[in-house]
């Protein structure tokens, strides 16, 4: 009798683990890590060295992943909320990053494309770009919430026009900023060997965590995503919740714009943050969140973002040419979508039941 109970609880732990949302991203991470280790045992070595400015920096594959995955993690925060609330995805984030970056540079340059001095403090320029990006987010949100346009179609407008708008903001010029202050956000702060983007991502994660913990945003968002009508009958305003989610994504976009611009101290409107929306959506999917909205797990999305960057960086390491990368990512997407499809889930359910029945027999 007792033995049986122990067995049952063991089974439960296993089942719970598999059911847990973090299971898929963790599994993906484990597969990637093993794959990397087999190919090159020293792959996870991290070394402390100096960069050309004489400041200490950490380097190694893991650091590169944490560094370059940060933008994706930040976008995944906003994308998770948008997905949960609206049951759709924003495909304009790449174009919106171009706009935010362009506004930032325009403010820093003050119209002169090769400024000797910054026209205003970076923080002020950043806040202005935040406002602009949030306005564009609100624009998407209004289309989705009030006009009931499918999110992907609504954001297609900005996806198409965004990069042209970004080019227009700077008169199609290519400002180059030489001030070292700007380079800190996408590089290293002198004396701190950990890449700044990782810090920025962690700050965003912390803020989001606190917001979800101390406000009802998470609950309301899920309620709207699960059933808009019943949430309205319970006194929520689904429109406002949806718009808020798009505005928060806009804020994330502005932060990413700052990091991206800081990395190259400049901007190229047609390629900055290109196809990043696909990675951000993939992060949400990899985190086990339903792309049709409703319940979400923020931590899983953020974790998923870093796993995707790990995948990208691994593919670079194995010299898979960059234009074949999307094909590999597509394979991951297909596997995820198939696993989470209702028919497959049902089938899994049946199989486990059969298995249990057999065991009992």
């Amino acid at each position: 009798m007792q033995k049986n109970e122990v067995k049952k609880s063991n089974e439960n732990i296993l089942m719970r683990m598999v059911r847990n949302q973090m299971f898929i991203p963790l599994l993906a991470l484990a597969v990637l890590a093993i794959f990397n280790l087999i190919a090159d045992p020293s792959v996870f070595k991290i070394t402390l060295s100096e960069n050309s400015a004489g400041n200490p920096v950490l380097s190694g594959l893991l650091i590169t992943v944490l560094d370059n995955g940060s933008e994706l993690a930040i976008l995944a925060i906003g994308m998770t909320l948008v997905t949960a609330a609206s049951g759709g995805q924003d495909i304009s984030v790449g174009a919106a990053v171009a706009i935010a970056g362009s506004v930032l540079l325009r403010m820093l340059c003050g119209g002169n494309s090769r400024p000797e001095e910054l026209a205003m403090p970076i923080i002020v320029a950043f806040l202005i770009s935040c406002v602009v990006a949030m306005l564009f987010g609100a624009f998407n949100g209004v289309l989705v919430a009030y006009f009931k346009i499918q999110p992907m179609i609504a954001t297609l407008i900005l996806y198409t026009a965004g990069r042209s708008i970004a080019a227009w903001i700077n008169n199609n010029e290519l400002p180059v900023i030489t001030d070292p202050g700007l380079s800190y956000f996408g590089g290293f702060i002198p004396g701190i060997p950990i890449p700044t983007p990782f810090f920025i991502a962690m700050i965003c994660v912390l803020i989001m965590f606190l917001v979800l913990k101390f406000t009802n945003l998470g609950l309301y968002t899920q309620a709207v995503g699960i059933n808009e009508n019943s949430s309205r009958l319970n006194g929520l305003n689904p429109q406002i919740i949806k718009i808020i989610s798009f505005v928060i994504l806009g804020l994330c976009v502005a932060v990413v714009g700052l990091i991206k611009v800081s990395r190259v101290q400049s901007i190229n409107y047609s390629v900055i943050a290109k196809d990043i929306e696909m990675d951000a959506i993939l992060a949400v999917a990899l985190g086990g969140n339903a792309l049709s909205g409703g319940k979400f797990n923020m931590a899983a999305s953020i974790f998923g973002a870093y796993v995707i960057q790990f995948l990208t960086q691994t593919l670079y390491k194995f010299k898979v040419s960059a234009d074949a990368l999307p094909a590999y990512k597509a394979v991951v997407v297909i596997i995820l979508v198939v696993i989470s499809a209702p028919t497959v889930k049902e089938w899994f359910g049946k199989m486990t039941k059969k298995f249990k029945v057999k065991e009992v027999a």
Partner: protein
Amino acid sequence: MLKKKVAMLLAVAMVAATVVGCGGGDKETTDTPADDATTDAPADDAADDTADDAADDAADDAADDTADDAADDTEAPASGETIKVGIINNDPNESGYRTANDKDLKEKFTAENGYEATFQYSMKNDEQIAYAQNMLTEGIDYLLLSAADTAGWDTVLQDAADAGTKVILFDRVIDADESLYEASIVSDMAEEGNKAVTWLADQGLDEYNIIHIQGVMGSAAQQGRTGALDEKVAAEDSWKLVTQQTAEWNAEKAQQIVQSVIDSGEKFNVIYAENDDMAKGAVAALDAANISHGVDGEVIIMGFDCNKWALEELLAGKWNYDGQCNPFQSDYIDDVIKSLEAGEEIAEKTIIMDEKGFDAKTITQEDVENFGI
């Protein structure tokens, strides 16, 4: 209800702002071409096909009007009759190359130089054909064409021949019988690559371990610049590609590719990036790892396109080489028109422009001013 109305108004206002913003932008940039702009080579328009049509049309109409007005205002110069040219080009917003190209044409075909020019821009072949037909109906002496696509031009060119309009192609070639146009002025992408590779060979390194960062695969610029290097690597034992990947003209991707090579600990001493942006990204990765580059550095940095900022890097000795894709075609076109007007025959229909390559050791401030785009 009130909230709904407010939201609707807001949405309408934003849509309007978007459209107007775009249209205004296009117009503004056609009026004042940028001194220095984004990079990219001539043939990678596809990368940036995203401009919205509505705004484009509006801008085109506006540009058309201003061009017409300007033409009406200025009477023919005293020296002789004006030559009417219709110029169909790709959108100057497409890339820094195109902006420089458009600026160059605008400066050449002025009333002072005896021309009456009409400009039309589109990155779509069918729109370009429609513009060409309009121009032919209005009557022009010369049609200057940088076609968006190679196919579909036969009828238009036949119409032009019937109307007595002479056609000169610039920058792009098309699939049409040679008898239908007078001359074709093109960049030689393979020559750009050859020049760069020859320069690299002249550096006399013991061994060449090259990180090759490619542009968007399949574009003419990528093929020309890759081809020369591939040949050389196949021919020489001491030349080795450490990695050969496309970063799609993107600085960040280039940075990640170089970063991954540095992380793997493989040795390299040359970075051959097919445009300036990607070279810049690669250099950012080197700086983070404290690897010296440029003149007297461990790693040779090579870029293409000759952006002004890139030439400044050369001047500062941080890069070694920058190859040009010549956007200044107006002089060549002008020469062709002058000789045709004088009744001369054009001996060689395909005119290949000189391409320059700059070495950090020999570049001067004047080069930066004259050839930076």
